């Protein structure tokens, strides 16, 4: 049974491993079949990337993803806390709104944003991307963090209030530190969703603010089929994702389904 599982894993991951290996191959090696198991690994593809425009787009991706993460946490975390403690009537409607805005096809936002950004001169800017990434990250923060606060007993902040703390202090000093792991997981997921975006960046950026996923695709279209560099670019984009996903693997399902499933 275990060996069957092992074989299946290798089979399932073969396409992924192939790309990884390709990024270390010379062009001649890429076209060789059957492939040699031991080939002379080269870092030339990565070096070529680092001296090209790709470096700028990598930085763009980094800046935009981090900024959108920080902003969504700042706005969303207090709301998640309040919605957990406050029994409002509109709860169901808010949940549906958040879920629907998260599930909406990206093009539904892209068309109006594109039209408005043309007038606000936000096309091809960091700000433009950061704002549109809020459309999915703000909802993500609220529905990721709310269950964390549901788990923390109210007696915690009530004890602080009795000791004379203000509401804000109760939240900021007591509750916030206790939800640290949840915050970390949520932050990572926000970063990943922004980092993984392709569609918004494809439409809303041109050159200046182009993100790494769009830049890699441009290798395909404009510079001939530089397979080695495409593979190296793809590998660089997926590297932070793999590391971070491993860290938050326990929260992945929750992040993707908004707690449709407990456990």
């Amino acid at each position, binding site marked *: *049974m275990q060996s069957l599982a092992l074989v299946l894993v290798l089979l399932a991951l073969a396409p992924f491993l*192939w790309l990884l290996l390709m990024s270390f191959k010379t062009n001649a090696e890429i076209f060789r079949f059957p*492939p040699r198991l031991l080939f002379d690994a080269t870092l030339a593809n990565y070096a070529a990337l680092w001296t090209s425009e790709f470096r700028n787009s990598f930085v763009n991706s980094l800046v935009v993803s981090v900024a959108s993460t920080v902003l969504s946490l700042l706005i969303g975390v207090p*709301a998640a806390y*309040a919605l957990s403690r406050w029994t409002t009537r509109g709860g169901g409607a808010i949940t549906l709104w958040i879920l*629907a805005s998260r599930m909406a*096809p990206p093009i539904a936002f892209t068309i109006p944003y594109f039209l408005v950004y043309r007038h606000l001169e936000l096309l091809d800017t960091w700000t433009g991307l950061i704002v549109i990434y809020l459309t999915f990250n703000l909802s993500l923060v609220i529905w990721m963090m709310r269950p964390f606060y549901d788990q923390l007993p109210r007696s915690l902040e009530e004890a602080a209030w009795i000791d004379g703390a203000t509401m804000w202090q109760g939240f900021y000093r007591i509750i916030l530190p206790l939800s640290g792991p949840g915050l970390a997981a949520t932050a990572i997921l926000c970063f990943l969703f922004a980092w993984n975006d392709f569609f918004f960046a494809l439409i809303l950026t041109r050159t200046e603010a182009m993100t790494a996923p769009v830049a890699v695709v441009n290798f395909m279209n404009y510079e001939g089929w530089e397979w080695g560099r495409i593979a190296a670019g793809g590998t660089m984009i997926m590297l932070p994702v793999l590391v971070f996903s491993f860290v938050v693997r326990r929260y992945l399902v929750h992040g993707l389904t908004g707690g449709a499933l407990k456990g």
Partner: protein
Amino acid sequence: MIPERSASFARQQHRFFAFCVAPSLAALALITLLPALYLLATSFTQLSLTRPETQWDFSQPLESYRQLLSDSRLHNSVWVQVKLSFWTVLLQLLIGLLLALLLNMRTRLIEALRTVFLIPMVLPPIVVAIIWKVIYTPDISPMHGIFRALGWNVPALITDPDWALTSIIIADTWEWFPFTMLMVLAALQMMPQELLDAAKVDGASPWQLTRHITLPFIRGVLLVAGLFRLIDSIKAFPLIFILTDGGPGSLTEVTNYYSYLQAFNFSYLGFSSAITVALLAATIVLSWVIVRAVGWGTKID
């Protein structure tokens, strides 16, 4: 709590919570509700970027929607969408379920493998598309290399009319089977052990256990996972963009992709908005089904 101050305290608490929620609601209204209304407004115009005077021209508000009914390319895209959604959701549920049943063991190796299985799902979609572009490009594809070694003459799948959609379905299934697997695994781990033990004592075979106890227990999770995948399949974009560009012809052109072409290749934003409004409506209905299925509206923890 503190009885003598409770009235003013409750008010104070109310104000604090409102203060916490307000920025998020304001931001959501500004960045999601307003654009949705803008989209709706645009769908009532014939906006085309090549003719700026069409921007706020509401003289024929339903013209775009009339076109929806008569555009055969759009109807084709809906049919392609139905085929893509049906097969990807079905295959992902099946493969995810089988793997989850296989991996539902508590050994160190299996737990490690479970994590590794998640890789396709967490990869950036564009990287998944690149991976499959490599697999489907005969010159450099290990798959085509093997076919050649076996003496089979296999055409390039993504440009072959008989295989193009299938090749997208395979790639999409690969990307998302871990999602259903993960959800089923989570459900399996909440299954009450006594139930299984009791059935075993009664002499049930492994197949009977699966058929009569496990499957009924995880039916709800399969439904929810399927719904999530169904909604997501409507958004399929990077795979189609990179692998087939909707082709050959329009054999892999799903509705979302057609809407993208109308808006950003042909500049017919008005018509594209109308298509997108229809897509959005479908998404909202499906989300509502999920909310009902999960019972969120009534959830009180």
